[in-house]
């Protein structure tokens, strides 16, 4: 895991946009959990993304059909 350094990747998931495709959890199951109806929440909101998970999380970001996941702007991570 990253140690909370300034460079660590953080993400946000906008659940008002999520349409429950579930692609994120397929790519990065450690970071996205789905409810009984397939809608996602972050498994650990605000947590650093470990370097070894960044590729999977980036796939989740790129493949989300409704663009509900974004990389968190640096000024909002402090």
């Amino acid at each position, binding site marked *: 895991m990253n140690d909370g350094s300034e460079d660590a990747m953080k993400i946000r998931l*906008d659940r*008002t946009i999520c349409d429950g495709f579930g692609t994120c959890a397929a790519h990065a199951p450690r970071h996205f959990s789905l*409810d*009984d*109806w*397939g*809608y996602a*929440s972050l498994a650990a909101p605000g947590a650093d993304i470990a370097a070894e998970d960044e590729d999977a999380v980036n796939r989740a970001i790129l493949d989300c059909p409704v663009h509900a996941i974004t990389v968190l702007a640096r000024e*909002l991570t402090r």
Partner: protein
Amino acid sequence: METSDVTATCAVAAFPGLAARLIRDEPESLDAYLAAAGYENRQPAAGGLLDAIERSGLRGRGGAAFPFAAKARAVRKAARDRGLAPVAVANGEEGEPASAKDRWLLRHRPHLVLDGLRLAAAVTGAGQAYVYLSDPAAARAVTAARDEARAAGRLELPVEITVVDPAYVAGEETAAVRAINGGPAKPADKPPRPFQAGVHNRPTLVSNVETLANLPFVHRHGADAYRREGTHASPGTFLATVSGGGRPPVLYELPHGLPFRELLTLHQVPEETVSGVLMGGYFAGLLNRRALGMSLDHESTRAVGTGLGCGALAVLSDTDCPVAVAASVMAYFARENAGQCGSCFNGTAAMSAVLDALRDGDADDDDLARLSRWSRVLRGRGACGTLDGAVNLAASLLAQFPDSVARHRERGCDLCAISPFRTARPFEVEAVILA
């Protein structure tokens, strides 16, 4: 304690013997407010006042009880970090049907709220402020008060009034920000929180109007005087909307820490007829007769697994079936949620279906198992607190009223057979308190 008959005739009352800080008999004019040293010291020293507020221990009155000074400091820091002037918002959009305090304050003491907003802007450095609400009478009162105070040279801060359609979810702080920014009055997911980026993308202080109405007292009398009422962790007085219990609803100003039993005496509800309380409006769930041992402060209510929330307390009588009350409140959540987050619009509908079935004697083991699981796993899965309120309701019904739940499953409920509790907006108080 002496029983007061004030509740028989009056929908608004301060606790007997309390020097009321928020409640007064008549709507307050500018002259009356100025005579009480309102709008004084037109340029309050920001550091001094914020330190006093911190020592006062003032907590937010919108439901979350967040310390006001910590919020104000977060806004100041974000403004400094980003090099932007912040914005202050008075949140008077009281979507909670069981609460009337915010609308009452805006209608009756608009100058107190505006003075508080002025002080909040001063301690955060905000140069622009908004009052956000839906109640038309409150909007008229606060608009007239603003214009009058400005004409009298008492209010230099630019204050805009933003009026939206009333809705349960419209009172959430990000809904206020979205509406002021021209969007729908519906919550946004976080981050960013308003203190980071809110109105016009600026660091924004969103404070409940009752919270703001406490600031002039601290400004005028200081932190020690403020702490003369209340408990260490819940200082000051608070507005409590009390409904149910077979009595007409009343808006009280109470000292924090008041034993709930004393409120029942004041409200003329016989203790032996009380089966429980719906806490914090619809948000903080159901409490059984353990409520009789609690005090009305954040520490004591937390210790029994609930919360004061916005200060609305709906007393369940022994003729109110808790299952039927929960079913009605859950149906409200299923209807009135923002329709944005899938976990919320699906989860509230699913929990509502189970509670309706349980009330009607049709729920089976699998239904109850699902309800129990949803009451755990759905927590935190919505952008705002609505789903958490629904989860609190389901979890507290199962934990606090297992006998009522079992009765509905085994042999039917006597209470529901006689007078089924079924209403669209349980414990709605507006018609009485704001008449």
